[in-house]
């Protein structure tokens, strides 16, 4: 009898874990380092970010292929990939952290919840602590979307801007994240 109860408890725990995790492989991340004196928008987007969130613990993860950032203009893309973030040398950017106020996100009540995220981000071979605010959207008992808009100092990640364009490229890049989550299926 005890064995059966134990088995039921294990299965229930596994099911709960699976149901509490949500993921996407098509998250949209945009990077903007435009300044008022930039001759045009210095902007790139990547529609293939992988993200996972655990609604129970608040654990959150992002994985981004740097080489998959697309620019409207080829020259800007070449400078970004070759001179700034060195995409072939450091092809991955990842973030591992926690939604620190996940307890305030009520899965039983549809809505947009303001959240605080804190964790370690690795970019250009440098790992730094990053904090950001954002929103999580819940619908039908599940987390369905997440959004955030925050800034990172490029110098924190050893990304140097050449002197000749120092006032044309922002020292802090604006990062926008827009993801639609679906439940992780076991």
């Amino acid at each position, binding site marked *: 009898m005890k064995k059966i109860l134990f088995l039921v408890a294990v299965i229930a725990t596994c099911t709960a874990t699976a149901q509490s*995790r949500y*993921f996407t492989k098509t998250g949209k991340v945009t990077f903007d380092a435009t300044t008022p004196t930039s001759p045009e928008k210095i902007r790139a987007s990547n529609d293939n970010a992988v993200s996972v969130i*655990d609604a129970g613990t608040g*654990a959150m993860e992002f994985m981004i*292929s740097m*080489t*998959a950032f697309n620019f*409207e203009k080829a*020259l800007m893309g070449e400078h970004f*990939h070759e001179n700034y973030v060195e995409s072939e040398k450091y092809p991955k950017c990842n973030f591992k952290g926690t939604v620190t106020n996940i307890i305030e996100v009520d899965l039983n009540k549809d809505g947009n919840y303001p959240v605080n995220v804190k964790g370690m981000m690795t970019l250009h071979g440098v790992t730094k602590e990053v904090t950001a605010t954002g929103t999580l959207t819940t619908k039908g008992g599940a987390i369905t979307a997440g959004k955030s808009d925050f800034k990172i100092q490029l110098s924190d990640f050893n990304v140097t801007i050449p002197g000749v364009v120092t006032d044309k490229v922002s020292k802090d890049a604006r990062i926008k994240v827009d993801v639609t989550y679906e439940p992780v299926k076991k």
Partner: protein
Amino acid sequence: MKKWKIIVLAILIGGIGAGIYGYLEWNRKPASTSEKEAIASFKADSLASIFEDNDSIATIQFTGKIISLEGVVEQCTKDHGVVRLRLKGSDMSGIICEFEAKDSAQSGQAQPGATVCLKGQCNTYQKADMLPSGDLLLSNCVVTEYKK
């Protein structure tokens, strides 16, 4: 013609030429994958296995490079006009192929089970620790051939 006139004319022509080159270079659009040469050809399952076996070495070898691929379509999705095909890889991994916008109409017709040949830019093997499996990402893909 006087010597100084020739010098002024040469400088003028050189300046105009440099200006035109600069303008064209500044406004150059990214080249389509169809205009690029693939450095290697793979079956989808063998490429997925290469990345699964040693992600670090495969990343150094192939990331940012154009690759030709043949594989069986597992899933076709369209999101905000962007078509993605997931090709069957190994037991644990697949290959996600994101298509160029102008190729979306053709690639969007791919049916699960069909064999497709394509070219695309190899990115990284995207595996989050919190997920049981990962996928290799190819972007800016173009279909080169459909097979029955």
